């Protein structure tokens, strides 16, 4: 748990430095609290020994509730998220997915969740960036290296190395970096 939290916070500091913010100041933003509480929730879920697991889950539930109230970020421990997970800014963030890869970044107003009549939750690959206000809903699969632009609505599968933009979403290839 602690190694993953340290990786998350390192990634957070690097992202803040890249955006020109103070890297140590980003440790006190509310996204950091939500990530730590989420990691604790995963840890509590994985505990097999019931005498430790039940109190841990109880503490987790209280912490989760107050984090929701304080930050407006609701990342349920059901979602399996890889290391280096960054939450930038706060309020209106709901993340509930089957599986999310490494280097995942969400901004404010993002919803990842299910939709009426679709049983499965989204599966998201590595190095995915969700910009403010976008909604990713339904039983879709998103590949690696994807950027989803602000306020777009994604309801279908997205291939790897692409940019998604618009409501409903259009998929464009990622421009090459050279």
């Amino acid at each position: 748990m602690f190694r993953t939290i340290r990786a998350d916070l390192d990634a957070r500091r690097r992202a803040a430095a890249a955006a020109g913010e103070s890297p140590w100041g980003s440790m006190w933003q509310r996204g950091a609290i939500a990530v730590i509480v989420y990691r604790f929730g995963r840890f509590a879920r994985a505990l097999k020994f019931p005498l430790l697991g039940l109190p841990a889950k109880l503490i987790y539930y209280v912490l989760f509730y107050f984090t929701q109230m304080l930050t407006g970020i609701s990342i349920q421990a059901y979602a399996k998220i890889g290391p280096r997970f960054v939450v930038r800014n706060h309020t209106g963030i709901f993340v509930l997915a089957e599986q999310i890869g490494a280097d995942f970044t969400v901004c404010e107003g993002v919803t990842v969740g299910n939709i009426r009549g679709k049983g499965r939750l989204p599966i998201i690959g590595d190095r995915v960036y969700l910009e403010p206000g976008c909604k990713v809903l339904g039983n879709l699969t998103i590949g690696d290296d994807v950027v989803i632009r602000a306020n777009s609505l994604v309801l279908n599968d997205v291939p790897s190395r692409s940019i998604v933009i618009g409501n409903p979403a259009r998929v464009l290839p990622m421009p090459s970096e050279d």
Partner: protein
Amino acid sequence: MFDNIRADLHRKREWFLKEKSWYVRHVRIFLEPGTFAVIVYRYGSWVNSLRIPVLKQLLYFFYMLAKIVVVLGFGIYVPSKARIGKGFTIHNFSGIFICEADIGENCIVFQGVTVGHLRGQPKPPKLGNNVFLGAGSKVLGSVNLGNNVAVGANSVVVSDVPDNCTVMGVPARVISRETNWITEKLEGRSVEY
């Protein structure tokens, strides 16, 4: 007041809780911020309808305290003067703003929904029965939404919508004219949420 709250809780239990255990039905439902906000709204509208002078001010004080928690803590703003029918459900929280609109029965609201005014259109929106507002959708200006309308996620509704429609996009376009899953679910003909 209690009839309305019972109807709201019934709607939430039926639609959003897959597990039907006693703990989920009677404890966890009250831990959801949306349920708390609906109860506070119902209490506030009941206090507004009171006629006894001193008691009304006293009870209104408690309403203000609870409303501060709902607005500052959860980011849900529903004024007590809004006229909302039975079965009003808020799912999730934060970024929800509903002005003093006329809303029919069985309205379902997700996170990030705004029902509000637009500049130059003084009348608030008017929503029919069985309206579903998806995550991040905005209903703005003096528009009329009919019965059985589903508004897709992240869409902006600035024009009237007839009955039995699904609308989507910015600005919202009608993509289906045969939306009746809410009525079917209410009558027990469809089990799909």
